[in-house]
């Protein structure tokens, strides 16, 4: 099992076999290079752990535990886990500030604990088979010993073709479950399993209590202080630390905080696209000059993306609806080639501080829904999506008709996500009739509403939108396909200071208008970074990171070889997931360059990636 995870930990393997348990670990050495090998145990060797990730506050935890009499035998962050468990039992996890997937074995109690970080940064999968529990950081480690799981799960596929990633605990493999973020799974000696949520995104009821700060100025001071501390903690490493620089506010802010408040030298990395529509290199270069960092730019062509795609899907272990993860995988390769194992990124700021267009779009649609006949209210939609060549708001009247759909869902907690999910779900029309019949009636709106906290309707509308976004797109797709998986593909660890849980909890308590002021997104974050960044970066409207989609798989009208093969009618029919005739028409449309909208591109990339998944893990498995 463990050798399938070599890319996550190329620096060595470690094992512990006890009565009833086997733990294995592949190490990526970042902290305590000399003595930090895992598994790690407590003083009496009664508690053992293997974990993937980082405990950023281990220095403080260690000092506190030593004061309480605990004796450490390494300098690693891992060791605080076993001592915290000794002291606090299952609540040990509440003391951790970090990104982690932990397996902990309590030999005396004969119980296994699996724990995952609050935001869902590090993956952790498990399944029950042959009278045992099996777990691993990636699904391929399970498939290595459980070939019966090497089949695609229809429900997981449908969720991915709707929410962009499977809704935990589902995965796209049969019987394989993802431990949800912020959860702890205890497996007792008798096999009893208890899943406990120890943390969740939570927001105050609207109007229930006064704002936690007298003014936005006071909150900004506190935010700056928290940002500095989050960056300071996440710079902890015994290897040099790099950073991604997209040219936007978030990653620029992280690098500026490193430069302004620490002595740590930082090397920066960015992606430039040959396609001007996606390229942000002008802004990246401006930031490099401002921050005076040693910088590497990876230039990425459509062909680079297309050719990297099969490797990408081997790492994502799920279909993707966009190619955007592929350049990030190529970027982490450049990071590794430069001798770096760790990068800080700006991921998370949009979810925490309300940065995405979907939040502004929902704000306008809610405002509009109060007077559906109003033309000028809906014209505000024209302020969004200016970065798109084929903007959905290119024609105001048509945009009104499109975004006006679903206004009847105004009172529902998933209101903001109705248009996006409707667009993504158009890909389901390509499923084979047999597969569609096996799904039966499935309403994604009701499905997601059942997952929301009981008090969600008492929160502000923005808070509800943030919650759904953090749970669906961020945890299931961004932190996985665009985060952990594409960094770890090249043995690189991504770190996300904006997802420090103290920052999330701080931001969640703020009034919504401090996050989105009018239509100015991330208002308070801009205030907190004021003075650290050039004014044009501070004021720059968010441009989401995107890459060329269906066009990446064709040279002119010629498909790449693997694309021609996998999208052929014979292969599609043999796999059985899709309607070969319908996909053939979509293929022709993409080949002719006539697929300009999101829906067609998402469907094409989703279908191709599903076929690759089938090819990689089911038809020609290399993991066994």
């Amino acid at each position, binding site marked *: 099992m463990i050798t399938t995870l070599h890319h996550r930990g190329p620096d060595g393997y470690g094992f512990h076999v006890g009565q009833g348990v086997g733990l294995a670990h592949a190490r990526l050495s970042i902290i305590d290079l000399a003595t930090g090998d895992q598994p790690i145990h407590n003083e009496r060797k009664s508690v053992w752990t293997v974990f993937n990730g980082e405990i950023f506050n281990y220095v403080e935890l260690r000092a506190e535990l030593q004061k309480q009499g605990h004796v450490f035998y390494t300098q690693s962050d891992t060791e605080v886990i076993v001592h915290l468990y000794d002291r606090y039992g299952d609540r040990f996890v509440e003391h951790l500030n970090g990104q982690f997937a932990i397996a902990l074995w309590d030999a005396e109690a004969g119980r296994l604990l699996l724990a995952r970080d609050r935001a869902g940064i590090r993956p952790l999968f498990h399944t029950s088979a042959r009278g045992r529990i099996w777990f691993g950081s990636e699904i391929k480690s399970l498939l290595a010993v459980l070939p019966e799981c090497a089949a695609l799960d229809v429900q997981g596929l449908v969720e991915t073709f709707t929410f962009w990633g499977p809704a935990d605990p589902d995965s796209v493999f049969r019987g394989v479950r993802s431990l949800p973020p912020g959860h702890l799974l205890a497996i007792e000696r008798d096999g009893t399993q208890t899943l406990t949520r120890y943390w969740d995104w939570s927001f105050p009821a609207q109007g229930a209590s006064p704002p936690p700060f007298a003014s936005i100025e006071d909150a900004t001071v506190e935010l700056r202080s928290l940002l500095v501390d989050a960056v300071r903690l996440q710079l902890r490493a015994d290897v040099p630390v790099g950073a991604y620089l997209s040219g936007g506010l978030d990653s620029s802010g992280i690098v500026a905080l490193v430069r302004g408040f620490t002595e740590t030298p930082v090397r920066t990395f960015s992606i430039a696209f040959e396609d001007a529509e996606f390229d942000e290199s002008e802004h990246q270069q401006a930031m490099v000059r401002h921050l005076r960092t040693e910088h590497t730019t990876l230039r990425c062509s459509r062909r680079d993306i297309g050719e990297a795609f099969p490797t990408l899907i081997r790492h994502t272990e799920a279909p993707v609806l966009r190619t955007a993860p592929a350049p990030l995988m190529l970027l982490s390769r450049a990071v590794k080639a430069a001798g770096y194992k760790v990068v800080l990124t700006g991921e998370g700021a949009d979810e925490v501080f309300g940065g995405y267009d979907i939040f502004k779009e929902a704000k306008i649609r809610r405002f509009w829904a109060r007077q559906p006949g109003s033309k000028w209210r809906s014209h505000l939609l024209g302020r969004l999506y200016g970065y798109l060549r084929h903007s959905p708001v*290119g024609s105001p009247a*048509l945009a009104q008709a*499109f975004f006006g759909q679903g206004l009847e869902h105004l009172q529902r907690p998933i209101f903001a996500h109705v248009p996006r999910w*409707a*667009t993504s779900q158009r890909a389901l*029309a390509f499923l084979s009739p047999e597969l569609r019949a096996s799904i039966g009636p499935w309403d994604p709106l009701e499905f997601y509403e059942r997952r929301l906290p009981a008090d969600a309707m008492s929160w502000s509308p923005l808070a509800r939108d943030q919650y759904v976004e953090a749970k669906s797109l961020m945890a299931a797709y961004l932190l996985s396909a665009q985060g952990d998986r594409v960094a770890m593909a090249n043995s690189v660890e991504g770190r996300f200071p904006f997802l420090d849980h103290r920052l999330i909890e701080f931001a969640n308590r703020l009034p919504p208008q401090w996050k989105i002021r009018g239509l100015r997104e991330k208002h308070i974050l801009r205030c907190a970074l004021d003075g650290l960044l050039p004014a044009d970066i501070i004021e720059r409207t968010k441009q989401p990171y995107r890459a060329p989609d269906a066009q990446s798989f064709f040279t002119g009208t010629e498909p790449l070889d693997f694309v021609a093969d996998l999208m052929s009618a014979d292969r599609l029919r043999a796999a059985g997931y899709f309607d070969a005739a319908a*996909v053939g028409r979509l293929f022709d*449309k993409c080949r002719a360059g006539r697929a*300009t909208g999101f*829906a067609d591109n998402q469907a094409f990339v989703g279908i191709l990636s599903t076929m690759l998944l089938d090819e990689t893990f089911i038809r020609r498995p290399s993991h066994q």
Partner: protein
Amino acid sequence: MSSNASQIRAGIRSYILENLLFTSNGAELADDASLLDRGIVDSTGVLEIVLYLEEHFAIKVKDSDMLPENFDSVDNMVRFVERTRAAQ
């Protein structure tokens, strides 16, 4: 290209079936069905339709004509093409 209403209708139906519904089954497209309400097109899908109408029926769609009521169903598109050709 010169064509009467039935040819216009056939052309539009064929285009939508082939390029937006990805099927050859004509029963899946009612001429009076709202393409937006049925989720067949989003606003970029309507832009594709406009491009098709301009290229195949030699008409020019003005910005002021970019209204859902002109493009939301096969019936509406046929009427729009006929009206526009008569005016040009």
